[in-house]
């Protein structure tokens, strides 16, 4: 037996969550050629067909582009600190792709080894992820090369599988998922399926060995020649999480914020002395691949990549993990 829900009922349910005060985010068409995960005002805004995946990732709902860490007021010699005590509403991310949801358990490691980043943790705790399994894939998808697949429920609280006829099978994997869908589904004999591809594009172990042993290699320089260092790869990546801490607002006192940053920017590692360990783009390209396929796996046991393909899909010059890594794998 399975549990199913119609698309109309799913939209109505999303609207119900919104009416109940939850923040609901999901894919929406924001321009004719642009689909993004966005806060939704109604379940009717939810886009469920006709695209491979949104151009951004769901990480911004757990790790916002810019987040206040605390405020401060300067009065003469004294400083008054104010906590970021904005209450956090329960949040649902609906129709996330499996490659988005799977990044969350991977990110949990870095935000919690030794020091706990409660800004991330409290959003994570307040968020329920409802994933929509993929029925297709495009030339940039490579989840199967990094140990996932189009029907993976990793990081999801519930996952929806298309049944055709605008119906979905609902599989709840956590209590949070069951709390959302309890009593909202119907019994059925139908079971949904996900895409069987994409074919494996590379062997991550081969990549790990190459990158781990070819720190100095002309390969990086050749690849970086076209890179313009825009950071789009990192910003649209579900797993990239580097950030900066900066003061925002007038000097007389406002707030300190955590903002997205990227290892692709030249200032990222620049020392005060002027020395820069990664002074050329080749070194920065290398770092991104090294961090994803060697450093993070050594440190936390998981590849820092879910194969979503966003870095390649969004790259203005056709780079990204897949193009770089496929070349490594096929020499």
């Amino acid at each position, binding site marked *: 037996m399975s549990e199913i829900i119609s698309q109309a009922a799913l939209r109505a349910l999303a609207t119900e969550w919104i009416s109940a005060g939850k923040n609901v985010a999901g894919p929406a068409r924001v321009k004719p050629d642009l689909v993004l995960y966005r806060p939704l005002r109604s379940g009717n805004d939810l886009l469920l067909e006709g695209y491979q995946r949104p151009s951004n990732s769901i990480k911004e709902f757990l790790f916002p582009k810019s987040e206040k860490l605390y405020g401060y007021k300067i009065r003469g010699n004294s400083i008054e600190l104010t906590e970021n005590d904005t209450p956090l509403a329960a949040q649902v991310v609906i129709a996330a792709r499996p490659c988005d949801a799977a990044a969350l358990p991977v990110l949990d490691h870095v935000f919690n080894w030794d*020091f706990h980043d409660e800004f991330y943790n409290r959003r994570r705790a307040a968020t329920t992820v409802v994933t929509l399994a993929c029925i297709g894939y495009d030339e940039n998808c490579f989840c199967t090369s990094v140990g996932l697949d189009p029907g993976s429920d990793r990081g999801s609280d519930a996952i929806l599988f298309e049944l055709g006829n605008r119906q979905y099978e609902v599989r709840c994997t956590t209590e949070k998922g069951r709390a959302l869908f309890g009593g909202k589904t119907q019994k059925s004999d139908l079971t949904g399926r996900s895409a069987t591809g994409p074919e494996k594009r590379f062997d991550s172990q081969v990549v790990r060995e190459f990158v781990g042993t070819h720190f100095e290699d002309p390969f990086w320089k050749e690849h970086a020649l076209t890179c313009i260092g825009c950071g789009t790869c990192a910003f649209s990546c579900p797993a990239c999480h*580097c950030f900066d801490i900066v003061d925002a607002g007038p000097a007389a006192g406002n707030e300190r914020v955590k903002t997205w940053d990227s290892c692709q920017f030249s200032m990222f590692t620049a020392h005060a002395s002027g020395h820069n360990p990664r002074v050329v783009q080749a070194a920065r390209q290398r770092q991104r691949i090294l961090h994803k396929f060697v450093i993070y796996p050594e440190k936390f046991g998981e590849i820092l990549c879910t194969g979503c393909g966003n870095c390649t899909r969004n790259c203005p010059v056709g780079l990204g993990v897949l193009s770089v890594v496929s070349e490594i794998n096929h020499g």
Partner: protein
Amino acid sequence: MDNVYKPDLMEVTNVRQQTPDVKSMSLRFLDPGRARNFSFQVGQFGIFSAFGYGESTFNICSSSNWKDHIEICFRKVGRVTEALWRTEEKDVVGFRGPYGNGYPMEAWKGRDLIFLGGGIAMPPIRCAVWYALENRADYGDITVVYGARTVADLVFLNELDEWAKSERVRIIRCVDPSGETPGWKGEIGFVPHVFERAQVAAKDPVVLVIGPPIMIKNTLPILDKMGVKPASVYTSIENRMKCGIGKCGRCNVGPLYLCKEGPVLTMEQLQRLPADY
């Protein structure tokens, strides 16, 4: 919510201008409870903030035996350090820390200590020298070779004189060629060469070498000739840092997040890392 990014507030209790562009400062926690409970190890660092400008990473250059305050020393090079430069006594700055691993002062007990520092690298050496002098019986002979580009760039000069009065301590000051003044009584030359010329007779010493990459690079062959093992040579790799707690990704070199697993490394560890620092 437990906020790992929220700083402690510290009052500036003393400011000393060391050179035309370097100042040192003494800081005291405003919260008496935090002041009582605070402890750190020499070699650890803090993230210091000028409110309205941002945060910067400095070594805590005071000895961990000094309980009532900590000290920092910085060169004026950017937005935050320029704001700190304008800070006066009684002003309040932010502090997060202590972070990083620090020097293994316990493991160094019983060994001769050689400190080699260039320029603004004196502060992270100073804390260890004071600590060793305050626990004098625990350590063997102490040698400090400290150099800067010019006489005007040497920091903590009066303290070097004070250290020189202690037993079994040899202090060698030097400036780069053409950096001397008419009355200069120290050595002239680069730190590695001056150190080599000094023929320091140390048996199985611990060496702490901090300075510009070129200084460290030229020092290593000399230590090798002396028979010092890479595992006994320490440095502090001060990559750019923001969070200080292993999250923001900035200080990452090979498998290490230097803010947590560094900044203090032995040459043996360093030789295994990719040249990304």
